[in-house]
């Protein structure tokens, strides 16, 4: 690259650079993008650390296919199942887009749990990343709720009764459970309003929340950096050295780490001021 970077610039490249500078001067997009995209990451970061991105990509796919499916779906008990049949059998590539949304949902649940496991077993949730874990846990709950609310929309017998059971599980939570369930199903039993209510929750309430929390999660990941894998050479060397220091301290009965310092009588009494002497 070094020696080819001489001579007059391509005019198209020059115009592009000028446009980019114009935007960058006003928005600071260069700094922001560098901060977000070109972070230093610890050594031995592996494919396991890509599960979070995979989950986000699946969310994006679900969002896009969901928006387009909503162009044909009708959340009315009389026409819901029929509109899904039209999507599957009549609209061009409808079977494909519906299949992407359906299997994408299952894949997202799987990937989110794998990501959860990775973060847990790598210990990535530890200081200073506790809040990243908390936002992730909220995202997990919202993902599960997407699964619950989306399952009903097919409005066949399996969807209906599976959701009846799921909402009755909600209802058996102490004290507030029955009220939450009543609000979820728009009344004491599943009725014609339940479907459009689930649709609104599936399309508007939870996706809005998920987009917000994905933003927070990403911000925290960028700000705090990603954690070192527990098997990385540096971390294992640190742990080995700590273990050695701990043992050496124990052998010589010296205080180490968080153990309490033994109360030792002071070897020499502190010099005390004698009144009147000077």
């Amino acid at each position: 690259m070094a020696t080819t970077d001489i001579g007059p610039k391509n005019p198209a490249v020059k115009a592009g650079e000028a446009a980019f500078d114009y935007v960058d001067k006003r928005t600071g997009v260069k700094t922001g993008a560098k901060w977000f995209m070109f972070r230093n990451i610890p050594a031995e970061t592996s494919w396991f650390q890509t599960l979070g991105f995979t989950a986000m990509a699946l969310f994006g796919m679900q969002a896009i296919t969901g928006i387009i499916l909503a162009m044909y779906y009708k959340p009315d008990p009389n026409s819901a199942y029929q509109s899904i049949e039209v999507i599957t059998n009549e609209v061009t590539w409808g079977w494909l887009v519906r299949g992407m949304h359906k299997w994408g949902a299952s894949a997202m649940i799987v990937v989110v749990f794998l990501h959860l496991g990775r973060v847990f077993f790598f210990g990535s949730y530890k200081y200073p990343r506790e809040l990243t874990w908390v936002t992730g846990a909220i995202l997990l709950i919202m993902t599960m709720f997407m699964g619950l609310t989306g399952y009903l929309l097919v409005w066949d017998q399996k969807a209906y009764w599976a959701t009846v059971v799921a909402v009755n599980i909600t209802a058996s939570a102490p004290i507030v459970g029955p009220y939450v369930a009543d609000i979820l199903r728009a009344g004491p039993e599943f009725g014609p309003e339940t479907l459009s209510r689930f649709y609104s929750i599936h399309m508007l309430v939870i996706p809005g929340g998920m987009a917000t929390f994905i933003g927070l999660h990403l911000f925290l990941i960028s700000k705090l950096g990603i954690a070192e894998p527990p098997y990385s050479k540096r971390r294992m060397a640190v742990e080995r050295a700590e273990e050695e220091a701990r043992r050496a301290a124990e052998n010589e009965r010296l205080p180490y780490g968080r153990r309490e310092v033994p109360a030792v009588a002071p070897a020499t009494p502190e010099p005390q001021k004698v009144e009147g002497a000077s």
Partner: protein
Amino acid sequence: MAESQGDETAGGTRGGQYSGPTAHVPEPVHDHHDDPAFITRTRFLTGVALVTGGVMTAAILVPVVGFAAADALKDEEWRWVDVGPLSDFPDGETSSIAVSGPAPESDRRAFLRHRDGAMIAIWNRCAHLGCPVSYSPGGDVYACPCHGGAYDSLGRVTSGPPPRPMDRFDVKIVTPDGQDVARQTSPAEGVSTAGASPEDRVLLGRPFSIDEEQNPFKLHGPGELVTGPLSNLYPF
């Protein structure tokens, strides 16, 4: 305010030089900013903005939340529903009849059991998580397809996860012109059909829950306990 702070040192010395009367009279401190109860202009305007914003937000959120929740929290209304003449339900039979639910898919049914001159109506909603229960005439038992709950002929749990027996509907028998013939006094006994003629009508009413001894309780949702210490988790 500058003036009030000036007052404090008015009678004192400035920079060590004598500049006024010698007798120093300590005056009470009266800088309003030292009084925690004093409301500055910034504080006042912040308060006004917060109150205005709060009122406006509430004006949006209260109708919205009421709109979303108020109707959902209403209890379902129950009326006496005529399900047919007594001759449709002969003694010794258990008949399954549809009870209108809010959705066509809801499949809400009652098992009208007529034995030994007494009639009870069991709701087909499984007391575990609300699946529709089916009746086997052979064993005279009920079974839930979802999680294997099984009930005896009176709807009491014999195995599986349900926490209490199946719910019952209230039953009464009236003459074709609407006079009461028999009403249910205790769920264990049911409605006596001894004094009723075959043309008398059978009516189903408000459902209720029972415990294993068939004592009546207010209608509970599936999965909720009606007796024992855990029933206190569902106080309403």
